[in-house]
């Protein structure tokens, strides 16, 4: 009841004396375009300035004349924070680490192509905004390897999450307990994909697991073996910090 009264009071407060809205979509878009131009201009200015100051520094380091002091970049040329946002398919430092580790764990000689590495959380099956990466409960990556799809997921588990064992629809499954108490579950499943995939799930604790899956295509000559998938799933460096706040568990 009290909540409703607070709502009614606040709602009345913000509506009963509300003036006409001066902003329009057009004016905001105009301001947005201008902000973008300024942002790009600043980024260009930083690049130009970096080039200009790097020449005398290089001369100085090579023994030429110079003051010996590092050049000071004027404060007004500091890059805006948005210009530092990652733009590629791999999001942030965590995404880069995952990409690096997966590449290192794959057999040498063939070159994986990174499709994407992105943060997500329990509330969605899609990426969350990049600037919310610190709040991710899971990270997902996809690569093309020998022309087939490789997927890797790092996930915190919500309280009471059911552990996926060898129950259907998992096929051709083994569930092995490792000496450290973790479980290595290997199975074949479609998981929403038209093409079945071979999965290795390293259930490291009640709260964290890593999965590596590889597409099973026609003639699996270039496929990854269970052991090679397990090498990725059990990589001890495939971890990321827990979010400062946990989202609501999925319903």
């Amino acid at each position, binding site marked *: 009841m009290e909540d409703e*009264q607070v709502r009614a009071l606040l709602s009345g*407060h913000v509506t009963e004396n509300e*003036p006409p*809205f001066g*902003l329009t979509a057009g*004016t*905001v878009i105009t301001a947005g375009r201008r902000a973008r131009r300024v942002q790009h201009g600043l980024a260009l200015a930083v690049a130009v300035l970096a080039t200009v100051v790097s020449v005398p520094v290089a001369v100085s380091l090579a023994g030429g004349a110079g003051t010996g002091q590092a050049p000071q970049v004027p404060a007004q040329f500091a890059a805006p924070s948005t210009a530092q*946002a990652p733009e590629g398919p791999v999001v942030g430092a965590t995404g880069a680490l995952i990409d690096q580790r997966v590449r290192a764990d794959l057999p040498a000689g063939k070159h994986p192509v990174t499709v994407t590495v992105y943060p997500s959380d329990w509330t969605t099956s899609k990426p969350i905004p990049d600037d919310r990466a610190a709040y991710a409960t899971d990270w997902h990556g996809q690569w093309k390897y020998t022309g087939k799809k490789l997927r890797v997921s790092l996930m915190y588990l919500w309280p009471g999450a059911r552990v996926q064992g060898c129950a259907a629809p998992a096929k051709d499954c083994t569930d092995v307990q490792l000496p450290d108490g973790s479980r290595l579950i290997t199975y074949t499943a479609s998981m929403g994909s038209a093409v079945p995939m071979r999965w290795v799930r390293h259930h490291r604790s009640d709260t964290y697991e890593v999965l590596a899956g590889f597409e099973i295509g026609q003639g699996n000559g270039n496929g990854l073996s269970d052991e090679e998938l397990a090498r990725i799933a059990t990589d001890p460096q495939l971890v990321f910090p827990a979010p400062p*706040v946990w989202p*609501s568990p999925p319903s």
Partner: protein
Amino acid sequence: MTDWEEDFSEYFRGSAARLRRMAYALCGDWHAAEDLVQATFVRLYRRWHRLHSETLDAYTYRVLVNLFLSGRRLAGREQVVAEPPDRAAAGGDPADRVDLARALAALPRQQRAIVVLRHLADLPVADVAELLGVAEGTVKSQTSRGVQTLRAALGARALPRG
């Protein structure tokens, strides 16, 4: 106007008035509220391609509240308002409005943001906690304190106990 700018415009039309009311509850001034909304949408515009529809509202609230909490100076913004807004005729009891405005202004900024997000935007505790990056317990305790302060300022006529 490009296709994505049409989408952006549609989102603006559907949410800007609601956001301005929320901004007004936060800052207590319609001009400043409009500044906050404009700054919020400019930021959305710059990141529009990277935003997802499922989390768009939450992201928008977060930008607005962060701009308010950071106390960002907006005085230097460009004047791009199409028409200067007129002031509507005052309605209701002026004494009540002044009391509530003062009571809200007396709340610490984060506490005010939590009360507004909980009771005006009607967000659940968990969403407010995630949006502000604080524990759910903090949201609950700050909401309770904020409402207590409002009750004390407004008296029993507005917010009876229990």
